[in-house]
């Protein structure tokens, strides 16, 4: 099961290599070049998707685990270091953790690792909330911004 995305990536990379060989042989001046370029572009997208699947397979469990840890830590901090102002950071972190728990890897090319970054930032924010109170929310916000940039950009 775990080997399957790797095998698919290898297959896709092989197919891309073949497409590129044809593209290189035709050369940019050839009349077939635009069609070959479009075909190769599809192969490139397929390789990117296969790589994302590999990343997703690798990061699903760690992301979920971090999200679950963040939720638990937020609960502990909320109870142990209760402060109304800190609740902002905790609520934001729990919301991020919920989103990552539901879908730990996302769909776009660079999203699995972007979600890792976002949930790590949320965990860090929760752990620092006793020190920084509500200001720790900024760390989570930065993580979310990073995630959005990787997903949309």
């Amino acid at each position, binding site marked *: 099961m775990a080997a399957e995305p*790797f095998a698919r*990536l290898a297959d896709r*990379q*092989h197919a*891309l*290599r073949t497409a*590129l060989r044809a*593209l*290189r042989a035709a050369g*940019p*001046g050839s009349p077939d*070049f*635009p069609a070959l*370029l479009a075909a*190769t*572009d599809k192969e*490139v997208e397929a*390789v*990117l998707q296969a*790589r994302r699947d*590999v*990343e997703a397979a*690798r990061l699903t469990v760690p992301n979920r685990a971090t999200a679950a840890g963040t939720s638990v830590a937020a609960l502990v901090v909320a109870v142990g270091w209760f402060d109304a102002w800190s609740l902002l950071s905790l609520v934001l972190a729990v919301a991020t953790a919920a989103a990552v728990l539901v879908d730990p890897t996302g769909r776009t*090319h*660079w999203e699995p*690792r972007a979600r890792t970054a976002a949930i790590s930032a949320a965990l860090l924010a929760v752990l620092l909330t006793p020190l920084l109170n509500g200001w720790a929310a900024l760390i989570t916000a930065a993580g979310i911004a990073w995630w959005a940039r990787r997903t949309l950009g």
Partner: protein
Amino acid sequence: MKDIDPVKALDDKVERLKKDVKSLGIRIDNAQTDAAQQKLSTTNQFRDTNRKITRTGDRVTELAESVHRLERLLVALNRKVRASETQKADFDTWPEVPDSLVATILAGQEAYARKTFTQQEAKNTRKAIAEYDRAALAAIDAADALTTLPAHAEALWRKKYREWRTITGRHRPELPDDDTHARDTAAKAAGNEAVARVRQTIRDRIEDAVARDLLFPAWFENMLGPAAPPGKADDWLHTATDVVLYRLLHGITSPADALGPAPKEQGHRRDLHDRLVVECADYRKP
């Protein structure tokens, strides 16, 4: 007899004055009645005159219409009379203008319509093509790197993918062709020469038809009128030659409509069509 009593005398005087005033009143009434009667009759006269003028206007319009009808009848009759007696001018068959000559003219017009590259444009295009080719090879190299990268090296994947994307949205510019340029120049020169020759042929035939007082074809008279307007013979001949050349080049054979329907697409033919329509409308004006 003089009245001694002053009161009586005064009474008499008052009586006389009363009579005078009364007669004056009567006279004023009479005058008013006269004036009213006069005014009424003037108004009536005015109305009559107006009615007459309107009737005359209607009559003039009717006359103008009948003159117009007569004019057209005269033209038609003139044609019929001349048709029975005179020879007809033939502006539809041109054995002295072979198809190859027409093809040469059309090729020349096409060459004019084609966008020509200036030296600088050709240079820029070549530079853009070289740039595209270089970018394409770089993009292919980047895509090649994607085939060997390990899955976890995300930064490298992103970098190479970005390099690949630089080429996918672009198009390679068309290569300017030196041969096309030279061919176009030759085609334009040959086209100009052919146009001059054909125009001369057509003009000669029209002048001959005018000199021998031949009957023009119906489409010709519809478009250019029955004869050259006074003082504008040369312009008229020029336009007539253009109309005949237009029919010849674009294969218009309608016996009544000289130029046929207006071409839909913009271009030289459309411009010429519009120009001829305007010029001929000038010649048909009374």
